[in-house]
C-alpha cells in the first residue's frame, strides 16, 4: 500500500479535480465538500474508501455511497480503536452508526475529521467561521509544499544581495576555468617546447604558468572574501526578516509554534538555508559549468577516449545509490549499540544506590562487556559493508584510467596523438568526475534547501492578525471590558473559546477557574487583546478594540503569566520594565509589595544582580514575584494574573494573596487560579469548561448551585485534609502521611 501511504489522507476543501469520480457522483447540486478523508481499509482488506464531510451531510463512499447521515441528525462523532484498526462512528438521534474502518496510520487524519464534525455539531461553530479558519490553515501549509515555488521565493527574498551572489558564482566559475589552463600549458610544454627543443618558447610557457598561478591566487582570495561576505549577508537578511516578522505577529502565532519552534526557525533554519545555499545552490552553477567546459575539452581532444572516461560513472552512481539506501541501516545499528553502552553506564552512575544495594555489580559488568562486544561487531559490519562497495567503485575508475592509458598510449606510439595531449587528457579526465558527482549531491541538497526555506516562509508568509484601525485613538481606560460571543482557535481545528461573552465592570475583580485546558488563559489574554477574536467583539469602556491605539492600550494593561520569563538583565531592570522612568525607590516599593524585597537584599548585588538567561538564576517563585513587581510598578488599569501564586509555598502564598487584595483594589483584575483560596477577595468567580463559561457568581452562590465549581471546591478540600497532618511528639515534629478521614 505504498501508493496510498504517500497520499494526503485528509483533504480540506478539496478542489473538484481532487475528488474521486465516485465521490463527485454522490454529491448533490450546490453541496460543498468540507473535508475528504481517505481510508486504507475496506472491511478487512486493504483498499481505498472515502469519508466525505459536506456542509450538509456525512457520507461514506466505497464504490457507491454506503452510509449517509445528514449533519442535522448527528449529535457527536468518535473513533473506536482496536489493535491495528479504528472505526469512525457517528452518534445520531437514531443511535450510533459506524461509517468506516481504517488502520492506525490514518488515525491522525480521522481525528482531525472528528474534531471538525464535532465543532459543527457539538460546538455549534458558525459554518462560515469554520470555513475561513480551515482555509487559513491550508494556506499556511501549502506555502511550503512546492520545492520550486519555495526556491523562487527565496531568490526573491535575496534580491538585495543578488549582485553579491552573482559575483560569488562568477568568481567561483572563473577559478575552475583558470584551473583548466595548466594541463593545456603542460601539453604545450611537452609537445611544442621539450619535444621540439624550442628553447625560445620556454620563457613564455613558464611565464604563462606563473601568470595562471598568480591569477588563481588572486581569484581564490576574492572567492574566500566573497563567500564570507555572502554567508553573513544571507543569514543577516533572512534572520532580520524573520525577526522583524516576530514583532508583527500576535501571541496567537507564538502559541501555535511554541517558543522552541520560533527559536529554531530564527537560529537553525536561517543557518540551514545559508548552508544549503552555499553548499548546493552556488556549487550547482559551478559544477554545471565545469561539466560543460571539461566535457567539451575532452571531446575536442579525443571523442573515443571520452567514452571510456564516461564508463565508470554508471557504476559509481549505482554504488552511491546502494550505499545511501543501505548505509543508514548499518549506521543506525551502530548508533543503537552505542546508546546501549551509554545506557548501561548511565544506569550504573544514576542508579548507583540500586545497583550497589542489590549487589548487582557483576551483572552490570557482564551487561557492559556484552554491549561493548556488540558495538565492536556492529563497527566491523560497517567496515565490511563499506568494503563491499567502495573497492568496486574504485576499481571501475582504475579500469577506465588504465584503458585510457592503453588506448591513448597506443595512439601516441602510432603517432596519432601527441604525448602532451595524452597527459593533458588524463588530467582533464579527473577534473571531469568531481563536478559530475557534485551535481548529484547538489540536486539532493537543493531539496533540503527547499525544506529549510519552506519553514522560514511559514513564518514570513503569516499575516499579522491583530490589526488596529488607521483612525484608532489614544484613550484613558476606566477599566470596563466586554467581550461578546467570542470564538477563538489557534490551529483552525481545535477551538479554545466557543462563544464566550463576559462583562467586567471598572474595578471589578474576577476569578477565573476551571479544569486545565478549559480556555482560562486564552480568555485572559484575549481580554488584554493579546489575541484578536476571530468572531465576536471586544470592547473597552464600550469602544471597539480596533478603534483604540495599541500603544495606548498596552500602557494601561498588565499580565503576569504562570511561568514568567525574565529578560537577561538585572532584577532592577526587569522590574523597571513596567515603567520607563521608574525611580529606584519605586522599584523597591514594587518589590516590597510583591514580597520579594527581603530576598533581593540578601543577594550580594541586590537589585543589580543579573538574573541570567530567562531569569534562570532565580527560582520559579522568585521569578513570579519579580514579574508581579513589574506589573505593580506599571500601575495598570487592567491587571491579569495567571496563577500568581502557583510557584509559591503556602506561607508566601498567603502573604502575597493578602497583598494582592490590597493592590488590586479599584483595579479591574482577572485572576486565574487553581487554588481556589487565592480567589477569596474576588467580586465574582467565572467558571470555564471546554471553551465556554458554564457558571458565574460569588463563591457562596456557586457552592449552592451544585455544579462544576462545587466539585472543584470539594476536591480541593479533600486534598487539603489528605496531605497529612503534622504532629508534634516528644521526638520532635513528625509528619503523618496516612490519609485521614475527612471528618476525623
Amino acid at each position, binding site marked *: 500500500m505504498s501508493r496510498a501511504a504517500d497520499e494526503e489522507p485528509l483533504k480540506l476543501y478539496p478542489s473538484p479535480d481532487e475528488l474521486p469520480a465516485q465521490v463527485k457522483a454522490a454529491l448533490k447540486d450546490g453541496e460543498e465538500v468540507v473535508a475528504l478523508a481517505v481510508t486504507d481499509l475496506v472491511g478487512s482488506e486493504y483498499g481505498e474508501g472515502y469519508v466525505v464531510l459536506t456542509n450538509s451531510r456525512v457520507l461514506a463512499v466505497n464504490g457507491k455511497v454506503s452510509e449517509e447521515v445528514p449533519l442535522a441528525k448527528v449529535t457527536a462523532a468518535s473513533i473506536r480503536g482496536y489493535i491495528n484498526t479504528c472505526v469512525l462512528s457517528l452518534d445520531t438521534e437514531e443511535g450510533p452508526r459506524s461509517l468506516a474502518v481504517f488502520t492506525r496510520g490514518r488515525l491522525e487524519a480521522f481525528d482531525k475529521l472528528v474534531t471538525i464534525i464535532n465543532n459543527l455539531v457539538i460546538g455549534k461553530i458558525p459554518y462560515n467561521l469554520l470555513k475561513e479558519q480551515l482555509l487559513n490553515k491550508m494556506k499556511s501549509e501549502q506555502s511550503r509544499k512546492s520545492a520550486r515555488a519555495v526556491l523562487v521565493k527565496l531568490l526573491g527574498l535575496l534580491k538585495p544581495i543578488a549582485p553579491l551572489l552573482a559575483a560569488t558564482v562568477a568568481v567561483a566559475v572563473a577559478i575552475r576555468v583558470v584551473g583548466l589552463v595548466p594541463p593545456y600549458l603542460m601539453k604545450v610544454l611537452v609537445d611544442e617546447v621539450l619535444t621540439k627543443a624550442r628553447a625560445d618558447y620556454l620563457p613564455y610557457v613558464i611565464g604563462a604558468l606563473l601568470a595562471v598561478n598568480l591569477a588563481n591566487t588572486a581569484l581564490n582570495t576574492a572567492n574566500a572574501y566573497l563567500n564570507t561576505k555572502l554567508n553573513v549577508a544571507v543569514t543577516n537578511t533572512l534572520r532580520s526578516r524573520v525577526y522583524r516578522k516576530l514583532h508583527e505577529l500576535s501571541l496567537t502565532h507564538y502559541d501555535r509554534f511554541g517558543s522552541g519552534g520560533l527559536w529554531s526557525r530564527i537560529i537553525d533554519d536561517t543557518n540551514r538555508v545559508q548552508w544549503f545555499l552555499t553548499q548546493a545552490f552556488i556549487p550547482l552553477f559551478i559544477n554545471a559549468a565545469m561539466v560543460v567546459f571539461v566535457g567539451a575539452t575532452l571531446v575536442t581532444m579525443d571523442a573515443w577516449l571520452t567514452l571510456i572516461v564516461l564508463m565508470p560513472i554508471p557504476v559509481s552512481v549505482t554504488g552511491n545509490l546502494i550505499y545511501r539506501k543501505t548505509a543508514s541501516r548499518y549506521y543506525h545499528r551502530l548508533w543503537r549499540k552505542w546508546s546501549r553502552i551509554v545506557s548501561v553506564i548511565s544506569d550504573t552512575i544514576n542508579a548507583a544506590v540500586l545497583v550497589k544495594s542489590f549487589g548487582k555489580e557483576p551483572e552490570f559488568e557482564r551487561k557492559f562487556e556484552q554491549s561493548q562486544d556488540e558495538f565492536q561487531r556492529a563497527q566491523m559490519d560497517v567496515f565490511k559493508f563499506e568494503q563491499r562497495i567502495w573497492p568496486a567503485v574504485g576499481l571501475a575508475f582504475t579500469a577506465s584510467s588504465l584503458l585510457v592509458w592503453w588506448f591513448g598510449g597506443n595512439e601516441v606510439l602510432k603517432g596519432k596523438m601527441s604525448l602532451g595531449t595524452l597527459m593533458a587528457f588524463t588530467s582533464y579526465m579527473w577534473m571531469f568526475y568531481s563536478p559530475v558527482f557534485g551535481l548529484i549531491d547538489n540536486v539532493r541538497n537543493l531539496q533540503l534547501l527547499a525544506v529549510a526555506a519552506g519553514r522560514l516562509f511559514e513564518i514570513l508568509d503569516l499575516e499579522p492578525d491583530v490589526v488596529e484601525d488607521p483612525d484608532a485613538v489614544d484613550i484613558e481606560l476606566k477599566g470596563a471590558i466586554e467581550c461578546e460571543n467570542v470564538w477563538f482557535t489557534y490551529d483552525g481545528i481545535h477551538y479554545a473559546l466557543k462563544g464566550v461573552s463576559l462583562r467586567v465592570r471598572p474595578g471589578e475583580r474576577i476569578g477565573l477557574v476551571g479544569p486545565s485546558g478549559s480556555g482560562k488563559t486564552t480568555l485572559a489574554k484575549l481580554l488584554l487583546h493579546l489575541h484578536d477574536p476571530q468572531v465576536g467583539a471586544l470592547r473597552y469602556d464600550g469602544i471597539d478594540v480596533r478603534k483604540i491605539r495599541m500603544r495606548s492600550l498596552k500602557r494601561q494593561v498588565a499580565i503576569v503569566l504562570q511561568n514568567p520569563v525574565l529578560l537577561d538583565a*538585572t532584577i*532592577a531592570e526587569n522590574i523597571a520594565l513596567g515603567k520607563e522612568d521608574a525611580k*529606584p*525607590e*519605586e522599584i*523597591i*516599593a*514594587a518589590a*516590597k*509589595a510583591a514580597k520579594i524585597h*527581603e530576598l*533581593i*537584599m540578601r543577594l550580594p*548585588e*541586590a*537589585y*543589580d544582580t*543579573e538574573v541570567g538567561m530567562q531569569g534562570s538564576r532565580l527560582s520559579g517563585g522568585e521569578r513570579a514575584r519579580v514579574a508581579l513587581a513589574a506589573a*505593580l*510598578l506599571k*500601575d495598570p488599569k487592567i491587571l491579569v494574573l495567571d496563577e500568581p501564586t502557583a510557584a509559591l509555598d503556602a506561607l508566601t502564598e498567603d502573604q502575597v494573596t493578602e497583598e494582592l487584595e*490590597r*493592590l*488590586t*483594589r*479599584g*483595579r479591574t483584575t482577572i485572576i486565574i487560579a487553581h487554588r481556589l483560596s487565592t480567589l477569596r477577595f474576588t467580586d465574582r468567580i467565572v467558571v470555564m469548561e471546554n471553551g465556554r463559561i458554564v457558571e458565574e457568581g460569588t463563591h457562596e452562590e456557586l457552592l449552592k448551585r451544585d455544579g462544576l465549581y462545587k466539585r472543584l471546591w470539594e476536591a480541593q478540600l479533600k486534598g487539603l485534609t489528605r496531605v497529612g497532618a503534622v504532629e508534634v511528639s516528644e521526638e520532635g515534629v513528625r509528619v503523618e502521611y496516612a490519609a485521614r478521614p475527612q471528618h476525623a
Partner: protein
Amino acid sequence: MPLDLSTLKILDPSRVRVLEAKLDELTLEVDGAVYSGVRPRRPFPFSHPEIVIFYRGDEEVGMLRDYRKLDPRSRELLEKVLKVIYFMPKVRKVLSIRSVEGKYEWRVVTDKGEVSFYSWGRCVRVLHDGRLVIRDIYGRAYIVEEPEKLDGRSRLYLSMMI
C-alpha cells in the same frame, strides 16, 4: 491602588548620625534614638551606589536616598564601612590574559596593587554607564571604571573577553 511608598522608611539625612564604625557594623543615631550593630546595604551597588538601607538583624531601620548628604563625619564613617562591604579593586591596566586549561589567567594592575586571577569564558559584564565588571572563578569582582581611557593593549585584551 497606586504603589505605597510609605513601606520604604525613607530617612532624613539631617536627622541621621553615624557615631561609630567597625568592619561592617555601625552605631547609628536616628531622631535621637541610638541603634548599634547596624549594617548598611546598597540596594543598587552599581547603578545607584548613593542609596543605602540600614539593617539591624533582619529588621530594616530605614533608607537613605543619598548618603552623601550626611554630615562629613558620619559620611566618613559610613564610607569606611561601605569600603569593607563593597571592597572591589579598580583595574588600571591589563598586563596579560592567557587561556589555560579552559580558564583564563588574568594579570592586572589595580588601585590595590598587581593581582592575578582566573576567570571562565563569560566573565565580563558591561554596566549601563559603560563600566566593566570582571568576575573571577570565585565570584570576586574587579571593576574597570573608564575602559575607554585604558592603554591600547589593555583595551585590546578586554575586547577579546566582552
